[in-house]
């Protein structure tokens, strides 16, 4: 009996820690979405699909052309950043004066395009890098290096964004524009340029997430569907555009998914997370960190 309890506790602890590790990547994704929403006031429904394209880029560079992982990663980040900028330039910019819903739906169209592009170009097979990182045994618990590495890299990525946002004029403008869009012109800021930079930055974050997720998951055209919805829930719960709220919500959801997955399949973890989300909407309708009126 005692032995059983011990084992259970160990698994629980392992799940908790895995949850934290998962939270890092989710927080990265939430940060990218929040950044774009906060600045441009538009949500990229196809955000997870940008990640998927990034994962394919990694797969082909590393697996097909034999490029080193650490060379491929920055190239992928750059590629997805360009993709983000292109998305803004081609789809969002022409719709800037249109109702926000139209912008949102247009990115839904892009989701279709990216998914089917991947299907056409790469087929529906599941592919992986073929890199099998060792597993770290700690007591009776096992953690994959892939997850640890992802967690650390995600943190580094977020710190880099933080430094950019606080140290540079452009970064300061990005933070300012989400607080008061209307007076930016008085500061001499060309909002359109900031939008483009932010889109590239959001894309870069998706690119970084792609480099990390490809270590843990197989890539296929619909892989975005397995973490896209959860990212949206995180952002809504944390308050769209609220970086800190998104950060906290990411870890909250990661724990729920990880612990839910402990007792059943991972999918049930998602269901649990959604149920939790609905309950939270009743308790804190304006988002996790919002002050109650």
């Amino acid at each position, binding site marked *: 009996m005692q032995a059983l309890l011990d084992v259970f506790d160990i698994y629980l602890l392992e799940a908790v820690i895995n949850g934290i590790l998962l939270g890092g990547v989710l927080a990265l994704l939430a940060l990218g979405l929040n950044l774009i929403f906060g600045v441009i006031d538009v949500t990229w429904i196809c955000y997870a699909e940008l990640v998927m394209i990034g994962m394919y880029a990694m797969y082909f560079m590393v697996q097909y052309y034999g490029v080193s992982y650490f060379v491929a990663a920055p190239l992928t980040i750059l590629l997805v950043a360009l993709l983000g900028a292109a998305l803004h330039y081609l789809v969002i910019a022409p719709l800037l004066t249109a109702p926000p819903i139209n912008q949102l739906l247009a990115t839904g169209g892009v989701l279709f395009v990216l998914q089917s592009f991947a299907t056409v170009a790469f087929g529906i097979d599941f592919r992986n890098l073929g890199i099998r990182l060792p597993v770290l045994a700690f007591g009776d618990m096992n953690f994959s290096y892939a997850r640890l590495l992802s967690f650390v890299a995600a943190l580094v990525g977020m710190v880099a964004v933080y430094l950019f946002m*606080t140290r540079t*004029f452009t970064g*300061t*403008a990005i*933070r*300012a524009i989400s*607080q*008061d869009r*209307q*007076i*930016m*012109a*008085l*500061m*001499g*800021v*060309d*909002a359109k340029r900031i939008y483009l930079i932010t889109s590239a930055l959001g894309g870069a974050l998706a690119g970084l997430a792609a480099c990390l997720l490809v270590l843990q998951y197989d890539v296929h055209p619909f892989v975005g569907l397995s973490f896209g919805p959860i990212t949206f829930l995180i952002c809504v719960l944390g308050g769209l555009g609220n970086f800190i709220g998104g950060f906290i919500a990411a870890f909250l959801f990661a724990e729920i998914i990880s612990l839910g997955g402990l007792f059943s399949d991972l999918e049930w973890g998602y269901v649990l997370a959604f149920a939790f989300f609905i309950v939270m909407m009743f308790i804190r309708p304006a988002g996790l960190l919002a002050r109650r009126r």
Partner: protein
Amino acid sequence: MLELRTVNAGYGTFPALFDLDLDVKAGEAVGVIGPNGAGKTTLMRVISGLIRPARGSIKMEGVDVVATPAHKIVSLGIAHVPENRRLFPQLTVDDNLKMGAFLKEARDHYAERLEVVFGLFPRLKERRHQMAGTMSGGEQQMCAIGRALMSNPKLLLLDEPSAGLAPVVVQQVFELVKRIRASGLTVLIVEQNVQQVLKVVDRAYLIEAGTIRASGTSAEMLASDTVKEAYLGV
């Protein structure tokens, strides 16, 4: 320096300014007074490009302001301190000032300008790492003016600097305006607080329901019945 001719402007189908003429000469301090909703704030917004006039011309030192993209108007030397200060509440004082120096030219002289602003408002230097939204109303007004001065403007537009402030602070704010005047800057100031503003400006316009009702030197305006009527309706 600044010249407005038959300016008409509004919000959507909602007109706020009718055929408005206004001049500001270099070195002057000009006041615009008038009751709430008269169109004073609209006037400021039209000059700084936040809204575009439906008709009429605006020239800054001969340059066509209407044809200049909104974000480039600052580089013509016009800095606008908006109504209600409109600081970025969740940025520090430093970051707010940094935004004021976003322009390429200003960025190059960032350190110098910071010195100038801190020289004018030593209090800001003490508070430089504080979130702008957490400061008192008077300090926020200092920060808003400081932010506008960071771009090294020739013309400062002040929109209701005393609005929402306690009477003691209002006195301080007008002291600030005097200090700015003394530094040689041209100022166009919109105010409801007629008595106070007429003490710091050379000339003033009375604007009511979107049109100029009267104009004259401060002394003339102080004595004017039209002004009192516009405010009290008796």
